């Protein structure tokens, strides 16, 4: 059984290396600031006793005032996992750094989020619509989308 890492515990560890990078942390998850997401993600992947090398999924949630992008990471070495989140408060032009350079599996999922939620993933190698067609107006999974 995969054990869940405590978000608070991880926050204290991350803070040692990257202060000012944590926005919020609870026992379930860890919210990092967008501009330090890549650093934190690389730290979680490469640190010897963490080795979160498997990318379960990335998804996005619309909370009206901000978007939240949720990542779940698992270690195939230590058999533990963590939920990592980041928030973008700019609703008109939401943007998050892409983690495709760290985990290839994020490629299509980030494209899906871009397609349906309209969040840009900076640094993504092929950021274009996935399910809908070029020329579709709007992002239908947003709460304010009306067809």
């Amino acid at each position, binding site marked *: 059984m995969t054990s869940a890492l405590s978000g608070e515990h991880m926050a204290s560890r991350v803070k040692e290396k990257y202060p000012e990078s944590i926005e919020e942390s609870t026992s379930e998850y860890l919210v990092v600031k967008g501009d330090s997401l890549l650093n934190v993600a690389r730290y979680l992947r490469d640190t010897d006793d963490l080795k979160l090398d498997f990318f379960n999924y990335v998804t996005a949630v619309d909370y009206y005032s901000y978007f939240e992008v949720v990542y779940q990471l698992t270690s195939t070495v230590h058999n533990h996992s963590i939920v990592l989140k980041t928030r973008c408060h700019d609703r008109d032009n939401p943007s998050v750094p892409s983690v495709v350079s760290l985990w290839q599996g994020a490629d299509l999922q980030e494209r899906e989020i871009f397609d349906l939620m309209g969040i840009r993933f900076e640094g993504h190698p092929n950021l274009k619509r996935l399910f809908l*067609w070029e020329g579709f107006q709007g992002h239908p999974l947003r709460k304010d989308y009306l067809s």
Partner: protein
Amino acid sequence: MEVSSDREYIYTSTELDRHEGQVIEELKANSQETIADPDAWLDEEIKRNMLLTTADAVINWARRSSMWTAICFPACCAFEFIAAEGPRFDLSRFGMEILRASPRQADLMITAGTLTWKMAPNVRRIYNQMPEPKWVIAMGSCAISGGIFRSSYSVVPGYNKIIPVDVYVPGCPPRPEGLIYGIQMLQKKISKARAVPDLQQIMSKGTSE
């Protein structure tokens, strides 16, 4: 020679004999010519093997009795189609169990499933690749009107937005019996079609153009 008898007869034995002789003589006299072999049996044989009908009826019979289905199964109705095609419901009773991977060999499209706008050009292309004559059965709610996804941003509200539909089979999904009934309706429809073009109509069209 008179044969004595104590019973009374209308005719005597001699009279009967004479009558018999007369009949024989008469038949013999009339039977000197050889009667020609009757060839009515030949006509009968031809009648037994030949049906007179219209070209329309024959062509429509051929068309409706062996309809080949193009594969267009975007969603879950396909499973009901597979059940209808399988041994339990046995679509081959109606001469249409063959699924064609190539639309160029098909003349029936059973649209079993929800169609998204992204898929719509491909379905339309498959339809255009099918040779004439061709028919379409809209199977299930999604194919008829978009079903529960009708108001969705990505779903085509009914196949008849992109291709002409001959028969609608309602249900979500329709049971195989329903699909088979729809196919029978289509066969009835085909049997009423005018397969042979009206020459006069063609001629008048040719002159008017």
